């Protein structure tokens, strides 16, 4: 975390420097290589290889600015769309998705009542030039204008192929001959030890071996004037931001590649500049001069201030109106529900002890918004159960080594670096293989044999997978992350028991601290039911390079099964319970914790270590399992309404079967919809929203203000919400508003490159971001965090650390507080909480969930104005 702060300070400093440098004339501008490299890395996409899919704000580099300033500035620099198009907003207004009264209120808030009519006209009907131009790319385009050469076409395909071959993790049969050295050294050595060359001309080849060759040396040849260097490098690297981003990410986190590679952005740039010189020499027969000698334009300051335009104002109004059209309804619902509950509570006076005793079971889920519906259904199946939400790594952070695995999996939020290792052992099951994925079939003779043997088998397999899809070794199976019959090294009795500087297992003290922290956070410190489930989640999907994006974000994009099992074991540990008792958390002896994993794509749950249950709990679990099973049916039905291939009116078991098949179907590009539609994050007692239908759009974090009057636990809870939930939400936002530039485009033509990324076609740039199929149901609105606590406590909490406060004060996420005593709503604006009066007053009530789901409208097309209509309004339910 400290690193993050210093980094941000650096950037602030840098921005000041840039502003200061504006005052200098360009020719005085000196080129600071290290600074520019640093800056490039900062602005390039930071997506790591796809196996570790961690959601993050696509514009993380601009987070020090206010949201709107940031997106319009970034758009001006890099040329992408920062919001939806104007006519889309207007269409949303026409169809009623943006509410008229909200639009009016937003305009009045921003522009004053007297300007309502003027601005409303502008917003609704004025024509604007919406074309976006970008600052990046202007300088480098001069090669084509001056010399009629297309450098991108000449350099990029070869550059990408060499990069991909060097970084390749196991696709190529014949690996890069020199792979153990750094990229540049490998290139040099390969150049020396072959009879051919990377280059077509002599000069570049000679330059390659020049001592201490720096970027500046090469730019001197290519560009000439130092004042243009920075701009040129940005132009060059952002012409293939995918590859550059990957190189920068691997340079920073080399461990994200299993087969280690030493590459740096510096190496990439040097090699690319050499290729550029080489190709210019080749195409123009050395008849060319440094670029700056043939241009008249002054260098462009990429990061210069972007003027606020009227169009920007219009976009701000629309975006706010779009967001508040939904938020308003939610806040109205929360308020009304909470008021009515207060009324009821005064009638039925029951002591909390009694309530607790009556609990049949309790279940802990991840805060993930996909669990929002499952919790609702479980509660409806068994009215005497209780559910909780907490980040899905269940406060236990560690590396996991599966049986026989050569590597560790990090199972905790990405910014955390664990000191513990959990190892799996006693696994008897063998991993299955699939001959179709061998690369042998591409060789001469083995390919020949494969054609005859595998060929016809392939036909049968294809028929089978089309008409009767089932689990296979090549499908990423959430349940195979950990073997349910294997054992785990959870308890550490000897702290010298270490491996690679990691302590194997947790000591009793460490376990107790973690269990206590989690239980305190969600305020489950008494009234334990006989069985407490700890349900992690993961996702199975077939043929999906982005499968990691569907797994648990709190477990670094992996299924959380090990965490659930480890936590349950810790909480069941007698010595741990002893310690907990001293801290005031009394877990009755008959209470047992059961770990489990919910597959959010297949809608299946697997429970762990059931053999350890006592006889009474075995019986109880049997009953509860039926409730889970029925809830999963309903959950499948609720999800099915967004899948055109499943008829929601079919028999519920048939729907469940179809949902399951979806997760193992090769031909299904949407095994599930991931975090699509996420908009809300609710921090409070389950009661705050129990009875409010939120349509799987809310992250739910359990928290009881009563147990935490000072907001101590709240700080711990709020801290990760920005990076985790806000990160997810913003990645969806940007991938939605510009799926071409900030998203990965449609998945259908994707080609897996080197096992770390996807590109279109064989010569294309890597495509970071989310594919179209994941975001088509998503409404691009920012996250609204609703906290159930007194506004002053919430304010104090969010202000406690600058990096947390930045999310709120810069408006990357919205924040509201619900006063638990008065049910009044407060909204955080410009550093303070102000009371909020919801405009919506009519919240409907539904009785029959089946009818609600079956009658819900499906989208006509995936255009935003149609897609958003698939979202259901806020309802009350019993």
């Amino acid at each position, binding site marked *: 975390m400290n690193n993050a702060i210093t980094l941000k300070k650096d950037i602030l400093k840098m921005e000041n420097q840039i502003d200061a440098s504006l005052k200098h004339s360009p020719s005085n501008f000196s080129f600071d290589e290290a600074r520019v490299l640093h800056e490039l890395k900062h602005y390039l996409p930071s997506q790591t290889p796809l*196996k570790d899919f961690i959601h993050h704000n696509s514009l993380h580099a601009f987070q020090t600015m206010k949201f709107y300033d940031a997106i319009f500035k970034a758009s001006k620099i890099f040329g992408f769309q920062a919001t939806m198009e104007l006519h889309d907003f207007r269409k949303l207004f026409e169809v009623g998705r943006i509410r008229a009264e909200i639009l009016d209120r937003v305009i009045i808030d921003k522009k004053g009542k007297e300007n309502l009519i003027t601005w409303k006209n502008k917003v609704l009907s004025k024509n604007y030039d*919406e*074309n976006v131009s970008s600052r990046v790319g202007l300088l480098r385009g001069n090669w084509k204008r001056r010399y009629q050469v297309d450098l991108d*076409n000449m350099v*990029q395909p070869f550059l990408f192929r060499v990069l*991909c071959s060097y970084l390749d*993790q*196991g*696709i*190529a*049969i014949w690996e890069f*001959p020199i*792979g*153990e050295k750094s990229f540049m050294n490998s290139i040099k*050595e390969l150049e020396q030890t072959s009879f*051919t060359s*990377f280059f077509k001309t002599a000069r570049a080849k000679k330059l390659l071996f020049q001592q201490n060759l720096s970027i500046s040396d090469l730019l001197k040849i290519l560009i000439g004037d130092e004042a243009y260097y920075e701009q040129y490098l940005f132009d060059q690297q952002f*012409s293939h931001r995918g590859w550059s981003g990957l190189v920068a990410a691997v340079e920073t986190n080399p461990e994200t590649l299993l*087969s280690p590679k030493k590459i740096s952005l510096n190496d990439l740039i040097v090699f690319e500049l050499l290729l550029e010189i080489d190709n210019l020499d080749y195409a123009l027969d050395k008849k060319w001069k440094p670029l700056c000698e043939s241009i008249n334009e002054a260098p462009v300051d990429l990061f210069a201030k972007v003027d606020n335009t009227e169009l920007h104002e219009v976009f701000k109004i629309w975006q706010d109106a779009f967001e508040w059209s939904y938020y308003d309804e939610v806040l109205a619902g929360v308020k009304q529900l909470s008021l009515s509950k207060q009324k009821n509570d005064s009638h039925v006076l029951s002591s909390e002890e009694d309530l607790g005793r009556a609990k049949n079971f309790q279940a802990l889920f991840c805060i993930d918004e996909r669990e929002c519906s499952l919790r609702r259904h479980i509660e409806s199946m068994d009215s005497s159960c209780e559910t909780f939400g907490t980040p899905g790594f269940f406060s236990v952070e560690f590396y996991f080594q599966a049986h026989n*695995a050569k*590597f560790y999996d990090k199972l905790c939020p990405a910014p955390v670096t664990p000191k513990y290792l959990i190892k799996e052992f006693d696994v008897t099951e063998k991993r299955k*293989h*699939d001959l179709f*994925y061998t690369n042998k*079939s*591409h*060789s*001469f003779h083995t*390919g*020949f044999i*494969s*054609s*005859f043997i595998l*060929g016809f088998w392939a*036909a049968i397999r*294809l028929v089978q997978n*089309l008409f009767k899809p089932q689990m296979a*070794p*090549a499908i*990423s199976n959430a349940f195979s992350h950990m073997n349910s019959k294997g054992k785990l090294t959870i308890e550490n009795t000897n702290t010298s028991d270490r491996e690679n500087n990691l302590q194997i297992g947790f000591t009793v003290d460490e376990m107790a601290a973690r269990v206590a922290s989690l239980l305190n956070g969600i305020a489950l410190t008494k009234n334990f039911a006989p069985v407490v489930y700890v349900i992690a989640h993961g996702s199975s999907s077939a*043929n*999906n390079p982005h499968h990691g994006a569907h797994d648990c974000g709190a477990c670094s994009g992996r299924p959380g099964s090990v965490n659930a099992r480890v936590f349950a074991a810790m909480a069941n540990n007698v010595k741990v319970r002893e310690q907990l008792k001293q801290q005031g958390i009394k877990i009755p002896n008959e209470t047992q914790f059961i770990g489990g994993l919910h597959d959010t794509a297949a809608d299946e749950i697997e429970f762990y270590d059931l053999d350890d249950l006592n006889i009474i709990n075995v019986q109880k679990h049997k009953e509860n399992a039926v409730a889970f099973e029925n809830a999963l049916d309903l959950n499948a039905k609720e999800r099915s309404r967004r899948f*055109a291939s499943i008829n929601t009116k079919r028999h519920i078991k048939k729907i469940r079967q179809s949902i399951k098949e979806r997760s193992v*179907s*090769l*031909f299904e590009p949407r095994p599930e919809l991931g975090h699509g539609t996420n908009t809300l994050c609710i921090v409070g007692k389950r009661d705050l929203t129990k009875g409010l239908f939120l349509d799987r759009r809310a992250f739910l974090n359990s928290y009881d203000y009563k147990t935490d009057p000072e907001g101590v636990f709240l700080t711990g809870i709020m801290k990760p919400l920005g990076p985790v939930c806000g990160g997810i939400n913003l990645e969806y936002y940007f991938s939605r*508003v510009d799926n*071409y*530039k900030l998203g990965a*485009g*449609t998945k*259908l*033509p994707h*080609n*897996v490159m080197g096992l770390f990324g996807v590109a*279109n*076609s*064989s*010569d294309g*740039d890597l495509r970071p971001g989310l594919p179209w199929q994941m975001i088509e149901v998503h409404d691009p609105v920012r996250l609204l965090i609703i906290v159930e606590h007194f506004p002053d406590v919430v304010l104090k909490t969010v202000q406690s650390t600058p990096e947390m406060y930045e999310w709120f004060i810069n408006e990357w996420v919205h924040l509201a507080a619900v006063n638990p005593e008065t049910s009044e709503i407060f909204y955080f604006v410009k550093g303070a909480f102000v009371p909020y009066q919801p405009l919506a007053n009519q919240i409907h009530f539904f009785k029959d969930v089946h009818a609600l789901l079956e009658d819900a409208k499906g989208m006509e097309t995936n255009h935003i104005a149609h897609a958003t209509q698939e979202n259901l309004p806020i309802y009350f339910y019993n």
Partner: protein
Amino acid sequence: MEKVLQFFVFIPFIGYIASLFIPEKKEKIISGIAIAVVGIHFSALLIFVGFWLMGSAPVLNIKHLTLYSEDKIEIFINFYFDKLTVVFALVGSSITFLVAVYSRFYLHRDSGFKRFFNTLLLFYFAYTLIIFSGNFETLFVGWEFLGITSFLLIVFYRDRYLPVKNGLKTISLYRLGDVCLILALWMSHHLWHENITFLKLNDFQLVASHIEEHNYSTTFIVVMLIIAAAIKSAQIPFSSWLPRAMEGPTTSSAIFYGSLSVHLGVFLLLRTYPYWQTLTSIKALVISIGVVTAITASLIARVQSSVKTQIAYGSISQIGIMFIEVALGWHELVLVHFAGNAFLRTYQLLVSPSMLGYLIHDQFYNYMPKKYGANNSFIRKLSNTFYLWSIKEWNLDDLQFRFLWMPIKKTGKLFAIINKEVLSIALFMFFLFGLFGFLNGNSIPKQLDDILHLLFGFTGMILILNAFAERKNAIMAWLSIVFSQCYIILSIALHNDNYQFREISIYISGLLVSGIVGYLCLKKLKKLEKNIDLNGFSGHIYEHPRIAFLFLLSCLGFVGLPFTPSFIGIDLMFSHIHRNEYLLIIFSSVSFLFIEIAALRIYARLFLGPHKKTYHPIAYRSS
């Protein structure tokens, strides 16, 4: 029994026409039609093959339809059915059926859902036409359609740069193959004085005696056929288009470039085998293409670090082996090899996205750090050299560009410097002069006639090349193409007294309609967009899909898409060029080659690629 054959060709065609009329949003009906059509086709084929086998598997041949008939020249559609047809038809229909079912889900809500299924059916029709064809003309019709559907599927994601660039690259090579076919067609017209059927090619005696008589001409025909086959099957030196053609949805890559389309070169070789089975030198040529390809492509496949390109080169290498097998006469083996390879590559491509998860998982458990040895030995150096060459794909792409396309582009540019107005007027006068000459055929001395017709042919060719190199004015480029055609007709007409008004009018009628429609489209676009230069891609299809569609149709009509009058015109035109008119045949075939490339280039530059206007999300050029 022969009568049934035509239905196999028409079922897909009817399906294609039907699928055109379904509104875009009716995904279930659109995909339903495709699945039903291919499914019915497959079942009918199975039943038919059953009967056929019971009837001791006779070779079937039927003359289906005469397109044009005039004393010496007859152009007809002919169908043929034998073992080869059976295997290709069964493999083709089963793969197409499976891929259609797969795509129904895979392409759900894709903006090109309808386009995909339309094109798939058109492709299937073309494929069926090729494998059921009984003569070169019929095969050529299918071959042309296949090229067009390939282009349409490669540029499926037409709002990005790379698909469009690679689509043009592929169609250019395909067109080269088409020209080779048409040259083979032309020569065999003169050789056989008729439209030779594949049935007759099986007549060993007849063919043998013919080859003896016309050794050079036969060699010419066969070499042309082999080039056409090598291009279609991406053999060396034409391989580099195949991995780059994998731009469309994975399913279309699987069916086209993984399985069916690439094996058609093998089909052509098998079909024409009787023609060259006695020619040792030709066999040696086919074998050497096969050997070189099998080895080189498998080397390239070994160094590929992206899944789809690896599969592409793996497949090319196997097809190389098939070429060898064909030449050695092991035809049963080829058929099994083809079927196996087609199924395997289809499946591998379809599951290619799984590669990431599976191999990473595998590595997680089985990773062994690679040992890198010393690098100085000669063997190591040699091996590194081969590695680097393979990474560079043996420079095949670059060589193609430098030696095939670049010189032609340069030739075209030579004429770009002349003042356009002066040139137009001069050309027009020249044309009138030629027309006058043609109408008063007898008043011009023979010698002048000889020179004139060559001059006209040459002018036509230059005009097309000029259109191909044009960067500024789209309308100018289009008119250049239109005019060039007039010159070429005139050139042939001038020299050939047999060339009748009727034939010319058939040709002209096709050209005129397409030419005018195309011109109007461009005029309209110019009015709307002001600037319609050909520098880079403009992507106007985003705002003007209708104009784009009309213009595409006129391009296709203009370049002689089969079943347009211009197609018959081109066919006739070629048959009117005498065997010994080398210069004229060169001019005409270069024109024929570049007319499509130039027309589609105009289409692509104006309508495809990233949109010029940036008020909506636009793809990066590198993606």
